Every structure is written in structure tokens, then in C-alpha cells.
């Protein structure tokens, strides 16, 4: 029996997407947290079924607004595996360049919102200003600031030249300078440290048990960086480190992402320095009679898994496991026995993206039923609000 119930969401300033967390409070302490999803389900997997590969690629890169390239890259890899095709090195380098730029802009946006969650709005605004440099690079290199539709099966849509390289290096220099000064703020600002240190601790064992991915897992000392474990695109040719943390609290997760931005800048400099000479192949229509393949890419939030089955050049089945799907399960555990004031910080520290993650549960019970998670729990698990 709890004395107070507080709903966070579905519309709440701390959430950039609609979802609901029902908190049962004992004074200021949370005794139980129930996560309710299903507000933004788009049925993407079903939408992809029956589409031609070119059409599907177009949809795949619109699954997420923050890491759109990682989705198109994951999907593209499955197609290229089915075709048994290894793209030219220059194509791989350009793809890796866009992946790392996307990681930088995603982390910067995340950091901005993280600071906003505990009231440091000046840092939020400064970080958004810095993100603008990356968006300008995207605009120049890919033609799009948010959805950089640069991927095509077997190739990329645009090549980069010397002027682009100079432009990218100039912009990266600005971001690097800013980030070194922000690092000083994070290390010295007392209020920031008080709000983040020892908040939402995920131990290494927990990270393994919940199969966490991405920077959230790495901050707990659990390394599952796909770029290192299953290198793809240009990563086998690059010298870089997976940024690891130990303590697993919100402060470590912030520090890990800060360091990852600097590491990504290092990777991009290597890519631009070692960019192979040559032309990128022209895009041609492809045909796959039948096949299935899987792929893994390291999106900014963690491992992005794709399973694709094709029949007569049309998609028969697509299964996408986004990073948020892996990390969201730990959220109710993290929210128990903490203060309400910590909720936005903890929720945001795992970097959830609900719009890419929402799935339905299909239950075949003589007649076909399509239920969201909440309805499923309510009907089959005797789960009551």
C-alpha cells in the first residue's frame, strides 16, 4: 500500500517522446515504478513487409530521427550479405564517417537534454549550438541535416572531395575545443556532480544479466562494442578504443559519452587521412530471388540488430532490435527506492528512444490477436494497474 501515485507522462517535459511511468510513492521515495509503452507504435516491421528493397531502405532510414544512418546501414548490410557483395573500401570509409558523425551529434543532443533534466539550461543551449556544426557537415556531405539518405545497396549516394574534408576538419576542431572546456565543467561543477554521482547505479553483473548495450553497458564496465567485437565497414582498418567506465552511475554514463565524442573525432580524422583513392560505384537495381541475413551495427545508443528475409526481391520478414529495446528492461529496477527528483536523470541516462523501440506482441490463440505490451500484461498475466 503506497500513499501517493504520480504519473510521469505520457506528456511530460522530461520525456521527448510519449511514454508513461506510473510511480507509487512513499513520501518522496519511489516504491514501485510501472512502465507503460504503446503510445507511439508505428508498426514499422509490418510496414516493411512486402516492400521492394529500394522502398524498404527508404523506410528503414526513417525509423529513427537521431540515428537514421545506422538503421539504413544495418538494413543495407543484410542486403549486401545476401548478394555476397563486399563494397569498395572508399564506400566503407564514407559509411563509417557518417556513422561516427551521427554518433557525435546523437551524444551531443543527449548531453544537452541530460543537462536540461537537472536544470542546467545554459549547457543545454551551448551543446545544441555545437551540434549545429555536425548538422552543417551532414548538410554538406549528405544533403540532409536529419535524415542523411546517403546509403544505397552496394554503394553510397555521394562522394566527398578535398573541400569537404577541409570543411569537416575545421568543424571538428571547433567541437574538440569546446568539449575540452566542457570536460572541465563536468569535472569541477559541484551541483552537476551532486546530481549525477551515485545515481542510477548499474553494476557490471546487472549489465550482463540485462544484456545491456552501448555506452550504458560500457559505463558499467561491460564491453559489447560491435565496432570491436564484430568489426564492419572501415572499423577493421582503424585504431581506436572503446571508452569504458567502472562505476555505472549517471555521472559515468555522461563521462563515457563525453569521451566517446572525442574518440569519434579521432576516428574521423583517421578516416579522412586514410580515405582510399578511387571512384564510388554507381547505384544499380538489384535482384534477390530468395535469402535471409542478419547484421549488427553500433548505433550511438548501442547494438542495432537487423534480420531480413527476402523473397522475389520483396521483403518477407524484417526484425529490428534497437538499442533501447535492450536497455529499457532495467528501468523499473533502477527507479525503485530512489527519490522522485532522480527520475528524469536516471530515465535520460540510459538514452531511451521510444519511437524506434515500440513493438506489438502477436499472440496466436486460434484467432489472431495483436496486442501492445500493456494490453498483453492485462489480459494474460493478470496484471492490473
Amino acid at each position, binding site marked *: 500500500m503506497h500513499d*501517493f*501515485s*504520480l*504519473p*510521469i507522462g505520457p506528456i*511530460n*517535459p*522530461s520525456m521527448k517522446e510519449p511514454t508513461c511511468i506510473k510511480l507509487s510513492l512513499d513520501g*518522496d521515495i519511489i516504491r514501485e515504478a510501472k512502465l507503460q509503452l504503446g503510445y507511439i507504435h508505428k508498426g514499422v516491421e509490418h510496414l516493411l513487409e512486402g516492400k521492394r528493397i529500394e522502398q524498404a531502405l527508404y523506410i528503414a532510414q526513417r525509423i529513427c530521427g537521431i540515428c537514421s544512418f545506422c538503421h539504413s546501414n544495418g538494413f543495407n548490410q543484410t542486403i549486401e550479405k545476401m548478394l555476397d557483395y563486399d563494397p569498395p573500401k572508399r564506400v566503407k570509409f564514407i559509411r563509417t564517417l557518417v556513422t561516427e558523425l551521427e554518433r557525435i551529434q546523437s551524444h551531443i543532443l543527449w548531453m544537452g537534454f541530460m*543537462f*536540461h*533534466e*537537472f*536544470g*542546467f*539550461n*545554459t549547457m*543545454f*543551449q*551551448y551543446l545544441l*549550438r555545437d551540434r549545429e556544426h555536425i548538422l552543417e557537415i551532414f548538410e554538406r556531405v549528405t544533403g540532409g541535416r536529419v535524415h542523411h539518405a546517403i546509403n544505397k545497396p552496394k554503394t553510397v549516394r555521394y562522394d566527398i572531395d578535398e573541400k569537404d574534408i577541409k570543411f569537416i576538419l575545421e568543424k571538428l576542431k571547433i567541437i574538440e575545443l569546446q568539449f575540452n572546456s566542457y570536460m572541465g565543467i563536468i569535472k569541477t*561543477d559541484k*551541483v*552537476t556532480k*551532486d*546530481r549525477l554521482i551515485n545515481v542510477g547505479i548499474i553494476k557490471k553483473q546487472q549489465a550482463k544479466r540485462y544484456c545491456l548495450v552501448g555506452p550504458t553497458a560500457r559505463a558499467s564496465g561491460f564491453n559489447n562494442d560491435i565496432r570491436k567485437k564484430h568489426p564492419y565497414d572501415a572499423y577493421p582498418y582503424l585504431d581506436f578504443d572503446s571508452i569504458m567506465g567502472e562505476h555505472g552511475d549517471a555521472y559515468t554514463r555522461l563521462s563515457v559519452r563525453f569521451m566517446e565524442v572525442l574518440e569519434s573525432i579521432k576516428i574521423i580524422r583517421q578516416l579522412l587521412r586514410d580515405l582510399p583513392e578511387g571512384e564510388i560505384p554507381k547505384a544499380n537495381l538489384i535482384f534477390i530471388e530468395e535469402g535471409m541475413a542478419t547484421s549488427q551495427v553500433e548505433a550511438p545508443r548501442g547494438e542495432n540488430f537487423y534480420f531480413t528475409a527476402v523473397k522475389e526481391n520483396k521483403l518477407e520478414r524484417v526484425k529490428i532490435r534497437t538499442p533501447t529495446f535492450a536497455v529499457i528492461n532495467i528501468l523499473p529496477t533502477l527507479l525503485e527506492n530512489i*527519490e*522522485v*527528483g*532522480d*527520475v*528524469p536523470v536516471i530515465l535520460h541516462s540510459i538514452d531511451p528512444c521510444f519511437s524506434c523501440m515500440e513493438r506489438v506482441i502477436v499472440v496466436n490463440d486460434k484467432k489472431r490477436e495483436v496486442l501492445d505490451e500493456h494490453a498483453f500484461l492485462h489480459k494474460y498475466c493478470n496484471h492490473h494497474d
Partner: protein
Amino acid sequence: MSMHSYINIVITMIKLLGIISLALLVDGIFRKLLARTQNRIGPPITQSFYDIIKLFGKKRSDSKGYKNILFKTIPFLYFISTCSLFLFVLGIAKFEFDFIMLIYMIILSSALYILLGLVSNSPFGAFGSMRDMLLMICYEIIMTISLFSFIIYSDVLTLSEMNESWLILKLPIASLCLFVVALVETRITPFDTAEAEAEIMGSIETEYSGGNLGFIGLSRQLRFLFFVILLTRLLFNPSEILSFILFSVLIFFVLLFNEATTARYKADQTFSLLIIILILSVIEFIRLYFVVW
């Protein structure tokens, strides 16, 4: 009443209207400068006037607490109690031991603000009120002790008779305590815990709309101006109007600096910090015992 009394009432009303306009202007400047420090263009400095006019022109939305008479009247009472604070700092109302009345009015105003959340029948409002109540236990005591420190040191019976200048140098700890109280009262970071929109949305003001929200907004802007004037009076107390404005601007910029450069503490962290400030204010009060008597 004589003709003279009527004229005095009219003059007082004009002064209060002037104060309200000034408060809105100060809020507009605050928002603009804060935006500039955050690398934003920000709203025009007259935006606060537009906001208030727009709010008073809007209908009240159908809120859960709308049938409650307190829900409808308390925003106005809160506004009146906040306006009345200026009667003391501007010397319009002066009588012996008026500072006790001033302390009472500040506490009344804060209590009415807490009541706003409790009568709104909203979990966010109730939660904001609960937090504010927790903090109020601390910060109102600190304010009372600090104000008494200033009064006792100046050895006066009314606020308008205070002629000691640069008390910030003579009573540094009491000045610091009063400054922290001003941060809490004006909801400036790191002490805007009661209004943390990330977790409890609009907090106490969640259910209010239209004119009622207008009164709450106006009161907030008036409270900010009041604490700027109070801090200038107590900490510096310049005799000339020009230096008064200059020191007020200085206080304004210090508050702005705090808002722009700090994050928000949690309720328990704010409470722990206020306990330390409370101890400091008591130490200063005890020190005064030896200095004055």
C-alpha cells in the same frame, strides 16, 4: 475620510501600478539577458507585458479543482499579499516594529503559494506544495533570523529609519544567508527545486490557467523585484537614488549569473544546504549578541 487621504490612496495605487510595470520590465530584461548568455536571441523585453495581457484575456480551462472556491480566490490573494510587501520596502506603510509585519507578510505570501498547489487537486501541485513546505520550514526561519540580525545591528524600530550603509561588510554571514533565501524565494537555480519541471511539470501552477495564472505570474515577477530591492536596502542601503539603482542592477546580475551558471539541486540536497545556512544564521545572530550588547 479627508480629501488628503483620498489623494494619498490614489498616489499609493499609482505607485503600485508603477511597481507592477517595473516588475514586468525587469522580468523581460532578465529573460532577454538570460537568453543572450545561453546563446539564444530570446524574447523582446516587453514579452512579459504581452504574456500577462494574453493570460488575462484567456478563459479559464476546465480544471479538476475549478469548483473549489479556494482554487478561484487564492491566486488573487497571493497577488495582493505579494503587492503588499512593497508597502514596507518603499516606506509607504511605516510604523514601529513594521519589520515584524514584513516578515509576517513574506511568510503569508509563501504560505498562500503553497496553498495554491494543495487546492488544485493535482498530484503535481500537491507534490510541489509538499516540497515547498519542506523547504519553507528552513528558509523562512533563516530569513527571520537574518532580518532580525540587520535590525538589531542597525538599532532601529522601523525599516525606513535604517541608515546604516554597507552592512554586507559588517554582517557578511547574515548577508550571505539572506542572499540564499532570496534565491530560494525567487526560484533561482540551484534552489528552484519546488518548480522542477522535468519531474513535476508545472508543479504548483499545473492546473491554473487564464487570469489566475496571470496573477501567479505577476506575483512571481513582483517577488523577484521585491527581493532585489530588499537585498539592496539591507546589504548596501545607498542614500542616493542613482547608487540605489546601480546596486539593484548589481544584485540583479548576481541573480542572473546564478540562474545561468548553475544546475538544480534535489529537494533533500537543498534542504541539507539550508540547514547549514540556518546554522550559519544562528551563529551570526549569537555573534551579534556580543557585538551589540
